[in-house]
């Protein structure tokens, strides 16, 4: 068991049956009362943020969570198949668990897979990926309207809004947290 003096950013604890990671914490001591740690934590399954004031003396149950670097290999009917880059073991994670992250998860990319009680429960992608455009309408030469964009498809099937000058085969940089185009890295 942990107690409040163990609290630090990234500590993984169980709250109401779900695993949480500490995001922020602060010492507080109200009135003439006991010391508390004001804590902001994130549910590792749902991403929901919870605030709790933990009294010094409260016991905290460690969460059995682990992250492993794994390479995404391919998708089958209902799972994404990953390979542990250190043991070469393969595991399948249900598509529903990966959710919208799949949009920015091209084959062969390395991701961090989160395991809770030895079961894979989620992935975190690198913040940025580089992808070639596989499909987009040609841009119009001479159209210089600033900020004008058009849809473009990448290998995962996801559609990104890109500037008009981007062509099929161009390699672009994408922010996986927002799905936004950032810059063109190479021309076709």
């Amino acid at each position, binding site marked *: 068991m942990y107690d409040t003096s163990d609290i630090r950013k990234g500590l993984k604890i169980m709250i109401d049956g779900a695993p949480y990671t500490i995001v922020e914490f602060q010492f507080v001591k*109200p009135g003439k009362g*006991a010391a508390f740690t004001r804590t902001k934590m994130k549910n590792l399954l749902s991403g929901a943020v919870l605030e*709790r004031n933990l*009294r010094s003396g409260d016991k905290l149950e460690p969460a059995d969570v682990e992250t492993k670097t794994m390479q995404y290999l391919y998708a089958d009917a209902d799972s994404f198949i990953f390979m542990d880059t250190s043991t070469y073991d393969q595991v399948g994670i249900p598509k529903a668990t990966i959710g919208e992250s799949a949009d920015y998860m091209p084959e062969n990319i390395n991701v961090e897979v989160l395991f809770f009680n030895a079961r894979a429960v989620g992935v975190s992608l690198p913040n940025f990926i580089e992808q070639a455009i596989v499909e987009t309408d040609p841009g119009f030469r001479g159209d210089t309207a600033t900020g004008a964009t058009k849809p473009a498809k990448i290998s995962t099937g996801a559609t990104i809004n890109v500037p008009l000058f981007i062509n099929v085969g161009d390699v672009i940089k994408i922010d996986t947290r927002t799905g936004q185009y950032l810059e063109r890295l190479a021309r076709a």
Partner: protein
Amino acid sequence: MVAARETLEARARILRAVRGWFERQGFVEVDTPARVRSPGQEVHLDAVAAGDGHWLITSPEYHMKRLVAAGLPRIVQVAKCWRADEWGPHHRGEFTMVEWYRANEPLETLADDCEALLRVAAVAGGRDGAARAFEAPFARTTVRELWARHAGIELTGDEDAVSLRAKATAAGVALGNAEAWDDIFYQVFLDRIEPRLAATGPTFVFDWPAPLAALARPKPGDSRVVERFELYAAGLELANAFGELTDAVEQRRRFEEEAAVRAARGKAVYPIDEALLAALPRMPPTAGIALGFDRLVMLALGVGDIAEVASFGDERGA
């Protein structure tokens, strides 16, 4: 790390203005011992050891009350205080307290003093608009009102810990393993009430429940609460005031009770301050208050971290 020069200059201006205000009100500035045999016996305040059976004060209150009992009716002190293991954005293990006493005057006068002092500090701090944020009068409410309004709990002050726990649980507060009355109280306070106080203007909270009496006397007409207020402003707990208990028998009973709780929790137990107990019967009805000076500077300058208003904020010292 040395604090910003402008901050230290503003801090010095505020201190000078605060001292000037007390002088104009006819207060005598005193200087009582910092190294004592009997620091506060309170359960949640741990003193820093100072060698040879002595401790650094957590507050200058015991010696100052002895001065009031000895016949000084209006005294003020700007005192360094130390509290073990209290470090955070609003806490430093070594900090500066402004503590003052008014004999033969009611608790409400101390609230008026606070209103004047916040304005004095804001003007001296020189930050645009700060003085306007502290226009008197400040809101005045009670602990019971806040509990009813923000937690939906009817708090009487004479319920036992089991019944308080049941009320808090029914209101949906997660209490962990809290069993002591004050631990349950402060869990509700932090979860439900303090965030609401942080969002309002300066507020005095009067009439604290009897289990949180500390050194305060029971309120005439309602002994379930005591004559105590706390001042909150901009999320800072700025001051704590008591109508001082002068009943030496009751004060000894409270000290012994607190000492027993400290012993049961494996904390250091300090000797009971017999000189204070001997002086209490000679003390006139008195109101006394402690105000955190570092926090006053934070408030006047709009600073969020106490380390920024200390000259060496990142050094922990003792």
